[in-house]
């Protein structure tokens, strides 16, 4: 299982890019932390999720 924003999901093997697309995120408005480290955008497509990973997707909204 992979923990996505606090919820366990059975998605090991999928890439981060596939996860973000399936969840409907706007890639221009997110930052992704994989196991508490920033994941560079260039690595979204090549990073496959493994059981035990913790992913935090921060999706920014406008306003400041």
């Amino acid at each position: 299982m992979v923990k996505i924003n606090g919820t366990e999901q059975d998605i090991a093997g999928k890439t981060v890019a596939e996860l973000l697309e399936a969840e409907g995120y706007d890639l221009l408005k997110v930052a992704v932390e994989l196991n508490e480290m920033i994941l560079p955008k260039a690595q979204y497509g090549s990073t496959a999720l493994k059981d035990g990973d913790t992913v935090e997707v921060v999706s920014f909204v406008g306003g400041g």
Partner: protein
Amino acid sequence: MTALTKEALYAALCARHGEELQQKFAAGAVAVCGLGGLGSNIAIALARAGVGHIRIIDFDRVDISNLNRQQYFPAQLGMYKTDALGDTLREIGLCSEITADCVRLTPENIPVLLKDADIICEAFDRADQKAMLVNTVLEQLPDKILVSGSGMAGLGSPNTIRTRKIAKNFYLSGDGESDSGSGPGLISARVAVCAAHQATTVLRLLAGETEP
């Protein structure tokens, strides 16, 4: 009326905050990126607390649409925000060295312009620009601490605005969801709540407290 000196203000800050804590604030170098409702309030809070080095960055000018929530005066309409807020900060923050950069931050200039800051505040308006700054700082300046804001529009309960530690050096304030593009937009007090979360987080970090 006698003009206040830096030394007199520093003594007053030490009397209020304690000398040990004030020395930590005075040693801090903080960059505020974006000088709208978040950034103008954050920078003023840091100057009042006596943070030693405050770098303010924005490319924009003061507009009438800013006056509902941003710390500018009608007489400053049309001025660059870096000039207008710089004037205010230099009046408040005699103990703060103020550096201003009137420039649009990009992935190319961020590593240069933010290299001297210990802590970086993301205070942009647009979601894509927030993401750009956060990704660039965390990827290219991994030794910096970043305090970002997302979700402070509308008139929802202020109690939904909170600060979370997302990663070792990444703190995020806001309710996470209220977008400025819908509803009544950005309102002074609620934006200030988020700004105060970010500024308090910065001051806690300078004091050595790493929990949000």
